[in-house]
């Protein structure tokens, strides 16, 4: 058994067991943490297959971003953990049935799977001095340009959809408006008023109100 085979079995063993933990653990936050562990081990497997770029992207995108989203979802959705444990029995029979059908289908597919002999040469990164990242870039932006642009459009739609679904503008919130604040001049906001010693302060109420934006500056009253 060579070292790479040993590393392969260690990585895939941890990957599979943490994947099992994701679906069996009661505490969903632990489930997400096990999912992150599974991502890390999958990245290790990618490195073993000489797909360094995919490994790094797996860590940056999945571990860095998607795991955070999963944590958010867990925080938002899962408020009580005790209630769900009681429901397990009701779905057991149906779950076993559906899972069994799926396993049977997978077995049937796997038994009748034919692979072209050339495919095994194509699953590696090209070894002739070309790095994995370079090989990916050489195809993605020219040969698959249309699919690449479609990916851009999907990202755009995701962005707009997320903004439309979740953005709520709040009323009556004091905001910094840097431009307005810097453009404010003394002559717009300071007024010199002559007050005779005998007059009352009430007379000042009739002053021009436009000099005090939104009436928030202190007014004598």
């Amino acid at each position, binding site marked *: 058994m*060579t*070292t*790479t*085979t040993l*590393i*392969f079995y260690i990585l895939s063993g941890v990957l599979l067991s943490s994947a099992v933990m994701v679906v069996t653990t009661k505490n969903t*936050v632990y489930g997400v943490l096990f999912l992150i562990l599974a991502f890390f081990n999958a990245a290790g497997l990618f*490195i*073993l*297959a*000489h797909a360094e*770029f995919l490994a790094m*992207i797996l860590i*940056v*995108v999945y571990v*860095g*971003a*998607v795991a*955070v*989203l999963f944590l*958010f979802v867990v*925080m*938002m959705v*899962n*408020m009580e953990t005790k209630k769900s444990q009681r429901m397990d029995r009701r779905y057991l029979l149906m779950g076993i049935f559906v899972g069994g059908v799926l396993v049977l289908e997978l077995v049937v597919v796997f038994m009748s799977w*034919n*692979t072209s*002999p050339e495919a*095994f040469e194509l*699953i*590696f990164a090209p*070894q002739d001095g070309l*790095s994995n*990242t*370079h090989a*990916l*870039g*050489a195809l*993605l*932006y*020219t040969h698959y*340009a249309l699919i*690449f*642009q479609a*990916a*851009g*459009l999907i*990202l*755009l739609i*995701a*962005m*707009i959809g*997320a*903004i439309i679904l*979740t*953005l*709520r503008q*709040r009323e009556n*919130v004091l*905001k910094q408006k840097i431009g307005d604040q810097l453009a404010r001049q003394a002559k717009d906001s300071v007024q010199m008023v002559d007050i005779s010693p005998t007059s009352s302060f009430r007379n000042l109420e009739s002053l021009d109100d436009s000099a005090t934006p939104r009436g928030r500056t202190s007014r004598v009253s």
Partner: protein
Amino acid sequence: MTLSSSQFMSMPLKGNLEEYFNIFIFMAVAFGISLFLVLLSFWRGPKRPDAEKLSAYECGFEAFSDARLKFDVRFYLVAILFIIFDLEIAFLFPWAVSLKSIGLFGFFSMLLFLGTLGIGFVYEWRKGALEWE
């Protein structure tokens, strides 16, 4: 011609991984040291637990409620927008590496992609999705 599963399993493992040996040593040392420190404090540290020590510490008071409470959906929005631009950056790396071989078409292909996401960026800026209040 079909290959046996054992051949299939060993296929992606061919090629050398010697250049990762330094990283492997680094990770082994880091793992060893952290494991050693944790086990050492677990083994040698005094353990005299009581109810007060085991309860959650929250700035000196009793914990008011469960730590898992609903929070503002805007955190979620920021995270989604972060992921989208994260993916955009991820697409930039192979492009930068292979820029010399993909020619002008590849260059403008990426510019169109960036323009598409730029529209989204302008939209989100004008809409005020990046402002926190």
